[in-house]
């Protein structure tokens, strides 16, 4: 799997520099602005990176060529999930760092608020790929991308719904009136969904003719 991850790193360095730059810019802006948008948008951008990499793989016909190397199909699938976790984890830490700076500037440091923020943004980042990957590994990256955007739209529909029904749902991270316990539960559910997605993708990919 090391070779697969190395290959994806090379592709990221070549094709995803704009995304990294955008993540960095929005994160830096977030230092002075604690609107949840500046935490969510970088994580959404980061979650697009694996989608892009899958498209480049498909364009190069890498998927069938990779089967001629000593990788199992499980390893090929797992490398994408691990890469996604690493990219989103790194982006989340960067965003948290910006929020720490924001809190320190505003003399408003809240440790539990930070954990909640980390849980929320990582959950938001993991959901679209968790939704998309099984479609991609079963049907190809084009249909997978369609599923990704569908999941993406669904997420914002849900967010808009929560805003409608919760009068005091602030969009300021430090003032989010959402108790910590539900956030932890949602975080664990999302991680469970990611794990289920991983399992399904392996099952689908093992049966697929490439």
């Amino acid at each position, binding site marked *: 799997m*090391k*070779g*697969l991850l*190395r*290959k994806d790193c*090379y*592709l990221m360095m*070549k*094709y995803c520099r704009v995304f990294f730059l955008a993540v960095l810019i929005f994160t830096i802006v977030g230092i002075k602005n604690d609107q949840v948008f500046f935490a969510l948008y970088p994580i959404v951008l980061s979650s697009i990176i694996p989608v892009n990499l899958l498209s*480049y*793989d498909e*364009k*190069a*016909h*890498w*998927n*069938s*060529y*990779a*089967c*001629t*190397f*000593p*990788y*199992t*199909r499980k390893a090929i699938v797992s490398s994408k999930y691990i890469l996604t976790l690493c990219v989103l984890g790194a982006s989340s830490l960067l965003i948290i760092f910006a929020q720490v700076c924001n809190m320190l500037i505003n003399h408003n440091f809240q440790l539990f608020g930070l954990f909640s923020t980390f849980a929320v943004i990582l959950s938001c980042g993991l959901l679209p790929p968790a939704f998309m990957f099984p479609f991609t590994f079963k049907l190809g990256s084009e249909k997978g991308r369609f599923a990704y955007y569908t999941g993406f739209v669904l997420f914002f529909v849900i967010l808009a719904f929560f805003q409608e029904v919760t009068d005091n749902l602030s969009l300021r991270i430090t003032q989010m009136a959402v108790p910590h316990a539900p956030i932890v539960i949602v975080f664990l559910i999302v991680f469970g969904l990611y794990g289920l997605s991983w399992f399904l993708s392996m099952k689908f990919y*093992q*049966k697929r*003719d*490439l």
Partner: protein
Amino acid sequence: MTTFETNALELKDLCKSYPGFSLDHLNLTLPSGCILGLIGENGAGKTTAIKLILDIIRKDSGTIRILGKDCSTETSIPKEEIGVVMDEVGFPECLTPTQIGLIMKDSFNNWDSSLYSQYLQTFHLPEKKEFGQFSKGMKMKLGIAVALSHHPKLLILDEATSGLDPVVRDEILDIFNDFTRDESHAILISSHIVSDLEKICDYIAFLHKGKLVLYEEKDRLLEEYGIIQCTKEQLQELDPSAIIGVKQTSYNTEAVILRDQIPEGFSVQPVSIEDLFIFMIKEAH
């Protein structure tokens, strides 16, 4: 004392169906130390057979043994010992040969970086140029370099010499020939360039519409079959079972025949594998 597997590759009753095409009970054996050439027209099933061997597509039925191992599951295929060159080398366009070498080093236990560098030099491949900027021939050469640089025992080549100029093709064929000097090595090669296969192959297999039409030692084929030029009337005098294929021209009739079933008096010329293939397929049509 080193023992080698008797057969590098054994396919028994291998079947795969698609709408409009089926690979029908393919039986092939590739002894160690030999080169098997797989010939067939477009859509005959050559690439399908190769993809089934590598588990890129799933077989409907049949068994595959590679280097003595039963390959019923994905993990049982000894990919460390197989070098593959497909008709399309599937590296992402942005990768350079140097990066590809590092990826392969992380992929294969037996990766030989110095051998890889040697092949890059032999094939005049620039190490820092992106794969997407390579010509078709250069891409194929890189694929061949990668396939050879982890000391495989079995090479599987699907149209590996297509897109190469004649000089380079000749060099590559020499490399393939040298590869099988080691009795534990073997090559399965499919190609439209039948003359290439005729140069290096020990065994020839003809595929037509998913069926194995012929599988024989190359030298025996060249001994058994010949080509005659005669009139239509002379052809009609011959035993039909001796005639493999016929081509009518404005001037005469050409026929590929079984030498030992032709009466004396006919001038039988040597037949090339390419002619044998063309006549057989035309007859099948």
